């Protein structure tokens, strides 16, 4: 039996009151619910406050470069599809520096669960605008307010027909944990955008701001229906939907590779008979 204690307790470098604490709690809950032992799981993260999260969990972890967690995770998963791979990083990491990888991972549909700690700001570098910062958001780097429109990750993911697209809020731990469990269960790429208050640098999108707006999608909501998903994806403002917004069952990326049917790449030995066969082409 895997218990929450297996995932350990750590001191963090986060600010008291930060939404990241609840996300970590929800992650642990989800892993325990799914009875995944620490060594069966691998977290990949980038750089930022969110990206430190896997360090506060007793598990396998690759904490890479800012913005580059998705390609690392893709490589890991192709090498060893047996691992349950979660990616955890910030909105800057995934929608800013790493935007191109997000597009690619959606197109590929690699079996990863991506948790974006979306605090609508760059936390670790002390409060510049992030791609999800609202237009007009004022920071030291944007003293006259952000001149760009915010990035809507849900809308883009639904438009691209990503396999699993959900939104959650760090303030609703049970719901968030449920989303993570579903994301892990989903065979293919799962994007979970998690609204997360940053108490130090985002004084606009606070806990109360999110809490007032977030509402769970109704039970009869059909995430398989693309058209309504596209509409829900665009809801933002006084009401912010949380839950599984869109889902389909495109085959996972890994399923396209015949070579993976013989087992993971990692344990494989060189087959000399085949090499000799290959060499014939050069004779």
């Amino acid at each position, binding site marked *: 039996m895997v218990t929450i204690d297996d995932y350990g307790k750590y001191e963090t470098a986060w600010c008291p009151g930060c939404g990241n604490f609840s996300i970590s709690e929800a992650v642990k809950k989800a892993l325990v619910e799914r009875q995944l*032992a*620490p*060594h*069966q799981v*691998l977290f*990949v993260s980038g*750089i930022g406050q969110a990206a*430190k999260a896997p*360090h506060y969990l*007793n*598990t*396998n*972890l*690759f*904490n*890479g*470069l800012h913005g*580059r967690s*998705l*390609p*690392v*995770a*893709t*490589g*890991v*998963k*192709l*090498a*060893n599809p*047996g*691992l349950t791979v979660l990616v955890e990083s910030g909105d800057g990491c995934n929608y800013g520096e790493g935007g*191109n*990888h997000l*597009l*690619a991972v959606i197109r590929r549909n690699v079996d990863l669960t991506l948790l974006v700690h979306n605090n609508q700001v760059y936390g670790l570098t002390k409060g510049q605008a992030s791609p999800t910062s609202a237009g007009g958001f004022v920071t030291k780097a944007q003293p006259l307010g952000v001149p760009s429109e915010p990035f809507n990750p849900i809308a883009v993911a639904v438009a691209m027909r990503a396999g699993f697209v959900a939104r959650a809020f760090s303030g609703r731990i049970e719901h968030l944990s449920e989303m993570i469990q579903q994301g892990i269960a989903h065979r293919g790429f799962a994007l979970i955008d998690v609204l997360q208050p940053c108490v130090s640098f985002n004084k606009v999108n606070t806990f109360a701001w999110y809490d007032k707006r977030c509402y769970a999608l109704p039970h009869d909501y059909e995430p398989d229906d693309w058209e309504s998903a596209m509409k829900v994806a665009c809801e933002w403002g006084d009401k912010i939907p949380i839950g599984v917004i869109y889902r389909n069952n495109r085959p996972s990326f890994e399923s396209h*590779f*015949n*070579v*993976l049917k*013989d087992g993971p*790449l*990692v*344990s*494989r*030995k*060189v*087959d*000399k008979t*085949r*090499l*000799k*066969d*290959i*060499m014939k082409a*050069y*004779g």
Partner: protein
Amino acid sequence: MRDRDLNILIGGEAGQGLVTVGQILSKSLVRKGYSIVVTQSYQSRIRGGHNSFAIRVGVDEVIAPRKSVDLLVALNGDTVIQHRDHLSPEGLVILDDSFGLSGDSFLKVPFSELSEKRFSNTVAIGVAGAIIGLDENLMAGTLDYYFGKKGASLVEKNRDALVRAVKWATENSISGFMLPDFSNPPRRLMMNGNEAISLGALTSGLRFCAFYPMTPSTSIVLNLAGHAERAGIIVEQAEDEIAAINMAVGASFAGAPSMVATSGGGFALMVEGVSLAAMTETPIVIVVAQRPGPATGLPTRTEQADLEFVLHSGHGEFPRAIFSPGTIEECFHLTRRAFELAERYQGPVFLLTDQFLADSYRAVTPFGIDQLSSIRAGEQASETSNYARYAITENGISPRLLPGMTEHLVVADSDEHTEEGHITEDLTMRKRMVEKRRRKERGMRSEVVPPDLVGEEDADLLLLSWGSSKGAVTEAASLMRSDGLNASTLHFSQIWPLVPENFMDILRQAEKVICIESNATGQFARLIRRETGFNIEEKVLRYDGLPLTPEYILREMNR
């Protein structure tokens, strides 16, 4: 020399199929047992322009390209104009009589009489092949090899064209180009530098390769992709080069020996990933096939101007090894060595080649697959109960377990970290980790490939070189020796780490040292000075995008 050493140049527009003509002739020559050195010259376009495929063929070993052409196979009139000046005194131009060009040494072939237009390349093969003494059946066999997949009727028609071409050439009995037969021809394979690298990687145990297309590296990965199913590997085209190297790092971390291949501009995008591999101590082999820069430069030409860039790529300080193969065999064997070192020292290892070598077909002795060992990623079990991915050890090498393969947890971090792999700001640990990583360089130094000396140890003239120019420099020195000069060559196929003890005596004993490089600033000469204090004032440099040849070297030295 024409009886034992011929230079055949096939020229035409992109899209005319001159590479196929070249490959079929080359393969026929190799199958017969001859030695070849191919030089491909092409433009950054798909149709039109002017390309060439030169095959220097030798009964004895040939090692370098040659500029003067004995047999010019002109697939269009422009080829005649562009290359006639390079024709050797008794050289011959094979051309279509319909070009309406005339000249002394012109063999006008009635292409349209011999076949339909779409088979005129086969006619060119047949005529040229017959003139140099290739057997019709041998050529037919090679034709089949290349066209076999396209269906029997096409093969048949090609064969017909070949037969008619050979017949025509025999009837016109052109003499002076016939190469001698072998009584006991050696078995050889034909491959270019990129193919040899991909085969070296496969035999080493490569399991994952990510790439973004970039000339002249692309054919490495195309070759791997073609064999992927059979070899049980995955080759993935990434969305960009940043993704490519990060994917490879991820796959390698998980336990799949990994490689990326690119060229200057693409590599520029990978350098942050190089630093990542070093900090996380993840094995990775990186092939940089050089082309002339800066920026987009000349995408399809050759140069050796990224030595310093690759040597210092990535922020921060960390050990690395750089191989610079000089032959096709070295492409194969040094790739294998690169995989071994990457695995042993857990970090980035480079192969620095260039367009000339990447595209240069040669004849190589089969590699003896049975004797070749392959690597296995990581360790399979930990001896201690407290596993620490970055345990501080005397040689700097920490035990590498693979995540998910044991119950031990594997924690890797791009931040400075504790022995367990967790992020730290402990500055004493920082210092110890810097020193641990640096200690790995000692091991690498202890097993460098020493430079290759050809000639006397105390030469009057010592030619220093690295990478793809090995053959050209060696031949240049050998020509000088035939002229009575005591010339030697010292060639580096591993350019980092440099271990001065391996070569300082030779440098010091030489009367005069000249460094030969395909770049404008003499980067290797500078590196030698940095590492040894030895100043090489004289240089032969080339930076017009063409490969070094023995003629070029001799001419520049005599200026």
